[in-house]
């Protein structure tokens, strides 16, 4: 029997010839990534010194910190957290990326999505580096282990292989594909496993779209997601790579926990209704629900193709009176490209509020809703209170649906606009 890409990567970083699902190994992450967040990085930095007597990380090139939450700071306390982060990075010689965009996206842009690499973060959405054949896992507070030891303890996960087939219809995007996966396979279908996405239909999904799918993997229960890299994604990633690593691919006879085939041909746009990411429904059943606000952004969506389709829908139109549309490109690089293409001016002319990259709209620090309000959102999550009041509601959908809904002030099907 052959090996999965995840097993091959974990074998290399564990200094073993081979590992199989279920093996417990001590693995050396190629990169240890975090964003600064109160109770996480500030505590890790303090614990390193006070509990473990570590004044400096021994191998600073393996670490990277992003300041992407609380950007810009709204209170002195938030800015104090950023100061702690800046000071720690300077003292340790660790790379700091501030105001470059949402870290999970920027991590790929600046070269941490190295094909074949093993990356850890405390946040699970780092899984989107899997688009480039990187094994990237959110390990929550166990990230402390990666700051105080060279290796982290990992149980090699089994892999669930999903082969996408068929042809995507107009108005159906990667976002819909992911939510359809959750609906078809179930929110626990990949529990403690790796979601490996492949099949002929991924040819129709852009790199950005694959970042959306892999980035949301945790809502299938997966510990991460991965795609065997193709030429285009290898070229993107290797041109920027911070480390020289030999890429690997799953063997044809790799052993999977399950193999699923999902035909996308009849897939319609999806809406995920509150209050859980498990609630995927056909958008057509929810048309007409009154909506107050729209958010196009986040590490899951908010990339160039999302902004482009929103601009196409809103060109020559206006956001409905009283509707608040927030458009937040995922990174500065994306924002600049969207500016050059004219999308941002189109969106601004339509009445959208266009903001610089920040994680803050996704978890309700900005664009906050009060009780009784409803949002359509391309954010990551729709649990109660995610975007403000626990008595507000979030409907997750693709970027085109956010734009069409902004025009009508109620949940709208984007397809007639395309």
């Amino acid at each position: 029997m052959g090996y999965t890409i995840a097993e091959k990567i974990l074998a290399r970083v564990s200094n073993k010839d081979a590992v199989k699902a279920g093996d417990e190994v001590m693995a050396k992450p190629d990169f240890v990534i975090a964003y600064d967040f109160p109770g996480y990085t500030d505590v890790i930095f303090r614990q390193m010194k006070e509990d473990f007597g570590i004044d400096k990380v021994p191998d600073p090139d393996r670490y990277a910190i992003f300041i992407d939450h609380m950007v810009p700071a709204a209170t002195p306390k938030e800015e104090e957290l950023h100061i702690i982060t800046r000071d720690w990075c300077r003292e340790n010689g660790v790379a700091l990326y501030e105001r470059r965009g949402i870290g999970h996206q920027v991590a790929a842009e600046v070269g941490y999505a190295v094909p074949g690499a093993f990356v850890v973060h405390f946040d699970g959405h780092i899984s989107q580096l899997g688009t480039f054949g990187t094994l990237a896992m959110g390990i929550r507070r166990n990230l402390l282990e990666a700051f105080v030891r060279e290796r982290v303890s990992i149980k090699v996960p089994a892999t669930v292989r999903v082969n996408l087939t068929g042809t995507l219809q107009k108005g159906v995007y990667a976002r819909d594909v992911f939510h359809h996966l959750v609906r078809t396979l179930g929110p626990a279908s990949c529990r403690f496993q790796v979601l490996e996405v492949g099949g002929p239909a991924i040819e129709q999904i852009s790199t950005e779209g694959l970042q959306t799918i892999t980035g949301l993997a945790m809502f299938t229960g997966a510990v991460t997601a991965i795609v065997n890299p193709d030429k285009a994604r290898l070229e993107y990633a290797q041109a920027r790579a911070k480390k020289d690593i030999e890429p690997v691919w799953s063997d044809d006879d790799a052993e999977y926990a399950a193999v699923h085939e999902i035909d996308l041909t009849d897939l319609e746009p999806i809406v995920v209704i509150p209050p859980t990411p498990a609630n995927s429904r056909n958008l057509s059943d929810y048309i007409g629900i009154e909506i107050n606000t729209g958010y196009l952004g986040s590490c899951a969506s908010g990339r160039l193709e999302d902004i482009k389709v929103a601009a196409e829908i809103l060109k020559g139109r206006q956001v409905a009176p009283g509707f608040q549309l927030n458009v937040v490109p995922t990174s500065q690089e994306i924002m600049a490209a969207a500016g050059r293409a004219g999308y941002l001016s189109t969106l601004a002319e339509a009445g959208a509020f266009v903001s610089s990259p920040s994680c803050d709209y996704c978890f309700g620090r900005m664009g906050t809703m009060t009780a009784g309000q409803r949002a359509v959102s391309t954010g990551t999550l729709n649990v109660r209170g995610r975007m403000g009041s626990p008595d507000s509601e979030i409907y997750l959908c693709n970027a085109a649906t956010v734009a069409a809904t902004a025009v009508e002030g109620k949940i709208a099907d984007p397809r007639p606009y395309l």
Partner: protein
Amino acid sequence: MALENLKGRVAFIFEEVDFDVDQIVGVKNIKIQDIDELAAAAMQAYDPAFRDKVRPGDILVGAGNFGYGHPHYPPMKAMRHLGIAGVVAESFSPGYWRGEISMGFPQASCPGILGLVERWDEIEVDWDAAEVRNLTRGGSLPMEPLSFADRSMLEAGGLVGYLKRPTAA
């Protein structure tokens, strides 16, 4: 080092699959720092008299994929403050599992547990036998054994204690 068995009453059964633990305290209370205040908010939506009934050593029982969503730490901090000693569920969501094991809070994955116990039954989680027993009504079910690292973390009382031990590899 031995990991002590959990032995206590089933203080509550969360029957909802994919249960979002934040609901235990309610999302509006998730940022409460004061542990007494947080514990007072816990379980209000499920059983307002919970804190009067619960005893140190009691255990929570959950359904499949317990802890799904974006679980935060305060709900289980509140539960520990009220004396809850661990959680036994049909299965767990990985993010929640990792988070609570790193806090040194015992979790046992036991498929079929909802059919084995009723509220207030006394149960025992036997780590070495990898078995959950109903001491009130009899009957037992196998549970999934802990990984070496998870077990070591529970024995050490959590992540920091675990990391202070010498490494095996």
